[in-house]
């Protein structure tokens, strides 16, 4: 279990983390989601012991580890671009954290770990010959080798793309579930956060803006900023309150409420931008093959079930 209590990291007059508190249950995968510069990576470094907080405490399994240096914390860390030791082969990278064990034991564990990440037989490979995805798997095996109490992943899929990314994402999720690991995972990608995190902590400017399951987060973003960051673009004043309107709740029919500005097909659905005569801009999504085209005059109806009230009043 990880407990972060009122951690502050100040860099001169600026606070990278501003009295941030957070709890991760044992066996849970928590995702830190936020734009770059929001302090996600710094929080990971604080938990790993690579960065001393200006104030606040970090507890692992109930023990205060704030003064414990990184090499005695038993926290595994994987960076975005693997950061393998370039002067050691794959096997000796994985073996680095197994210092003290006998050679045979080390060889056996390395082979088992490589098998776990799907790289059986890679032990003698030079790290320079690996693809991005393979390097990331080696980094994962290396981090798991000393059986860490907690695994921290900093944008683990950030340097990968396409099908490779999806496959590693699935593998990671299965692995975490199978090993019962406590994982904190950092990303700026909403889809990745929802796919990997059982709970997601949205970070903004050194603070936690909201912690919730992906489902809750999507159903009820805490404020306009969170809604906007999650990709909801219809943040409007409706009946005198600031609300988010799901694009699928915006129904268009021929009429005189506004003018279609854009119509973009995105796979099976079509995203339609409407400028209403009252000045609001709304996005509507439809799966219909026939849809209004730019320039068409439309009537705008909003299904009340798709309107999410925002708790805090904050200008977007």
């Amino acid at each position, binding site marked *: 279990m990880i407990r972060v209590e009122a951690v502050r990291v100040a860099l001169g007059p600026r606070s990278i983390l501003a009295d941030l508190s957070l709890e991760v249950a044992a066996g849970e995968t928590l995702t830190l989601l936020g734009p770059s510069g929001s302090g996600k990576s710094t929080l990971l470094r604080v938990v790993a012991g690579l960065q001393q907080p200006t104030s606040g405490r970090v507890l692992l399994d109930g023990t205060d580890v704030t003064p414990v240096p990184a090499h005695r914390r038993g926290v595994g860390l994987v960076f975005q671009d693997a*950061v393998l030791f370039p002067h050691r082969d794959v096997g000796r990278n994985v073996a680095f954290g197994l210092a003290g064990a006998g050679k045979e034991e080390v060889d056996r564990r390395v082979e088992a770990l490589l098998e776990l990440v799907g790289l059986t037989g890679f032990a003698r490979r030079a790290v320079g010959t690996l693809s991005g995805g393979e390097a990331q798997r080696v980094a994962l095996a290396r981090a798991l080798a000393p059986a*860490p109490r907690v695994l921290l992943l900093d944008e683990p899929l950030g340097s990968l793309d396409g099908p490779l990314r999806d496959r590693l994402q699935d593998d990671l999720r299965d692995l975490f579930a199978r090993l019962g690991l406590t994982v904190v995972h950092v990303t700026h990608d909403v889809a990745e956060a929802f796919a990997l995190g059982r709970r997601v902590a949205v970070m903004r400017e050194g603070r936690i803006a909201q912690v919730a399951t992906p489902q809750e987060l999507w159903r009820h973003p805490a404020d306009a900023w969170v809604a906007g960051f999650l990709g909801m673009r219809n943040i409007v004043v409706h009946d005198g309150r600031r609300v988010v309107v799901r694009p699928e709740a915006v129904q268009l029919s021929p009429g005189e409420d506004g003018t279609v500005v854009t119509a973009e097909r995105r796979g099976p659905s079509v995203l339609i931008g409407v400028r209403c005569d009252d000045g609001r801009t709304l996005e509507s999504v439809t799966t219909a093959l026939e849809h209004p085209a730019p320039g068409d005059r439309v009537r705008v109806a909003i299904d009340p079930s798709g309107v999410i009230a925002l708790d805090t009043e904050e200008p977007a």
Partner: protein
Amino acid sequence: MDGDRPALRRTARAAVAGVPLVFLAVFFVWPLAAILERSLVEDGRLDLPFDVLVARETLDVTWFTLWQATASTALTLAAGLPLTWALARFSFPGRRLAEALVLIPFVLPTIVVATAFLAVLPDALEGTVWAILVAHVFFNVAVVVYLVGAFWGQLDGRVSDVAATLGADPARRFLAVTVPLLQPALAAAAAIVFLFSFTSFGVIVILGGPGYATLEAEIYNQAARLFDLRTAAVLALLQLAAVTAAVAVAGRLERRLGGGRTARSTPRRRPAGRERVVVTLVVAVSLALLAVPVAALVERSLSVPGGYGLDHFRALARETPALLVTPWHAVVNSFLFAGLAAAIALAVGLPAAAVAAGRRGGWLGMLVLLPLGVSAAMLGFGYLLAFDEPPLDLRGSPWLVPLAQALVAMPFVVRTVAPALRAVDDRLREAAAVLGASPARVRREIVLPLVAPALGAAAAIAFAVALGEFGATVFVARADWPTLPVAIFRFLGRPGAENVGQAMALAVTLAGLTVAVALAAARARAGRGWRP
């Protein structure tokens, strides 16, 4: 007509390459050949000098040269690495200043370094091997700080972070991760420090006691004091072989070690917590240790019976039995010779740089570096042997001094100017040509302004190198035309506090001049020119 142009251009290119080639042939290869002849040929027939090679004295000198160079290298690395770490990894107020100060011992002429250690060392250490080793460390620390530091700054700090999360304590992180990654830079720095220490001359002849002669110092001893030219020539040959072998081994090591580049570099960060104490301590102690000899030198130059004063400096204008002229003349001579040497080095080095910067000129770039590999004393000795009979009888000519100094300085000119020429974007020349500029106009109005800072720096570096040149100059300088380093050496060779004081005053003068010129070089290189 058009058909003639390429032929004309080829001729012009050959002429440009010819200048440095002829210069190297006459003032480098020929003196070496003279040494070879003197050591291997006796009465017109080949006479291999086995007697000298296996002589007890030769073995002793070779052994001492080797082990003191090895020890100097190890000590320099050990002393330099903490400072390298602090300067390469952290940012703090005054870091740039500290980096600049570290360079000062390195730009100081070796004779000044030796004199400074004479001033600072307790009598108990004078004439011991420790004096030599400490002076070598002082002089060479900058090599480690700059070469290894540049590489260290490029390392990805997260590699070490990962090792920490895997349970590696700081010592294991340093030994198992950082050192292997730094290996190419460590090997390169070690090779250079080893070479400098192996061919050390000024430090040895001034600080080394009777039992501590390197090959370089012994060449001087045999040739200039005992007039045994054959032994000197054999030792010179031995030295050349050893240096060549060391360079070859270093080159191989560097290529083999390879290390591994990390993907990206981590910017310097502010030290935090306990780090701040360690970094401050390392920088402060290192700089203080580097400052002590210089401060002691200045102090001794100002100390007179019963207090402090400028007496030693005032005495520079008076005749002295140590020299045939006033010490002040040595200052003027030094300026004169260094100016001439810089002019010659530029005249020869610029064509060489122009060729070396071209696509097929790399060989000349390597060729002009050769004089760096040959020790200065050996070169001076070669001049004595080579230019003592027609067709080139320069015996007793003051010209030998600037010529020898120019040869020593020329590699620096080429190394400074060629990269600047190479950095001129070809598309700029093409753009100018398309706009109707002739090749001459392109050179004058595009290339010249772009490389002007490098030219200024090259001139200043050549001047500074010539100013402090000692090993070759001490062989070829006439008694009535001493340079500053030679005058310091003569003063130190005589007994009496008066002479030592004058040597200190001259050393301070030389140090001041050198630092001023080096600063000018740094300024010239840093700026006021255009950066593409």
